[in-house]
């Protein structure tokens, strides 16, 4: 039943559309609008249900190019996940630790992790880029960025 990718995605979309539709039916009623806030979401939910069914049963066969696109080696996916985790950590910590330090750490480790071996250049860029951005944003543009543990 879930033999093709289209079927699997179709099923997933069907579930998402159902949840969305369920939530649309929960929207409170507002007395003064002929077309209330729930009308369009309900329409969208139904449309998405129909489209997901259409995708499920569509006979379109994936082209070779499409298949190639989703052929991702496991290892690469892990690399990607690791980068996302790094970004997540960055967001989690940068208001506390501060923009300059956190950005420097991120650029250095992310670049190194992705295979950048000239560590001298890496260090220089990791320090100069956040410093430069900080100076431009905070002093030239007046947009404050978190300073965190640094005094400035």
């Amino acid at each position: 039943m879930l033999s093709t990718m289209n079927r699997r995605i179709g099923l997933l979309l069907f579930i998402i559309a159902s949840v969305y539709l369920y939530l649309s039916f929960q929207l409170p009623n507002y007395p003064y609008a002929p077309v209330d806030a729930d009308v369009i979401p309900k329409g969208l939910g139904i449309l998405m249900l129909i489209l997901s069914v259409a995708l499920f049963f569509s006979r379109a066969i994936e082209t070779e190019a499409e298949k190639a696109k989703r052929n991702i080696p496991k290892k690469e996916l892990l690399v990607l996940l690791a980068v996302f985790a790094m970004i997540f950590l960055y967001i989690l910590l940068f208001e506390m630790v501060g923009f300059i330090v956190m950005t420097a750490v991120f650029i250095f480790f992310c670049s190194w992790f992705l295979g950048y071996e000239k560590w001298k250049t890496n260090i220089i860029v990791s320090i100069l880029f956040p410093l430069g951005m900080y100076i431009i944003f905070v002093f030239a543009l007046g947009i404050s960025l978190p300073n965190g543990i640094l005094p400035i």
Partner: protein
Amino acid sequence: MKKTWLTAILAAGALTLAGCNSDNSSEGASGEEGGSFEPSKTIEVVAPAGAGGGWDTTAREVARIFGETGIIEENLTVINKEGGGGAIGWAYIHGQDGSAHNMFVASPPLMFVPLNGQSEHGHEDFTPLANVIADYGAFAVSADSEWDDLNDLFDQMKEDPESVTVVGTSAPGSMDHMQFVRIAKAAGVDPTKIKYVSAQDGGALTSVLNGSVDVFSTGVGETVEQVRAGNIKVLGITAEERMEGEVLSEFPTAIEQGIDESFVNWRGFFGPPNMDQAAVDYYEEKFKELSESEEFAEVRKKYGWSEMYMDGEEYEEFLDNEKQEIQALLEEIGLGN
């Protein structure tokens, strides 16, 4: 629902009481220490909206005048905390409990947004410092409209409510909507039959000019230029008495048209909860000085604002009353939360 309202009143009452208490004690203390509070670092003024809007402009102008006149010697910086119609900025200030170097600019949305259930924080959660200016609402129609005053409009609305559409910038239940409902109800229009649409990005004025909608509920300032150019006419404003200034003084109030109701778009400053009484006293005085300065009079004139100074205590009382009235009105039209 009712319960939260009750707690809110109680909390507000408790706050006022607490305010009174600390007031007394600090008076005693200041007898010994003298002026007691001086800002020791940069004062952060939050505009809970993006750059360029009403809150932002007020905050920046006030900060500028404080700086230029030297009324407050310490620096004031304005920061924008945009989002949730103000809720994000309020939550931020609420987190600065007790700080004497943070404040934010506020206006009626500080009541409307929590009343609409869109913010946990309302005015009673903060320390009112002072109100500085007042702005008023205006109801405008296209220049070639058949209505010449509010009573013409309201008569039509009583007769055939479906034929009149009101447009404003904010969502229903918020300022542009409720100021109209308030005046219309006082004139005898059934408040549950008012048709209101919300339009952003200049759409409201456009729709009135091209005749898609009939009435534009907005701030007085937004109408002046269009009235001068003869594009629209203002049927009535929500001020208690006529305003001063060119064009402005020609706008009739609702009261003089026999509708006994008004609405003020107040704008003032609040500090975080539990701000020290000495700091409150300090800011009250500084805002009073600002409000009375010639420089700020210029600013008011530039934007068509009126003077309306209230100290913290008076402010709180005023707001509690306002909130009660709005709450009742919202419940009547079925938008109460």
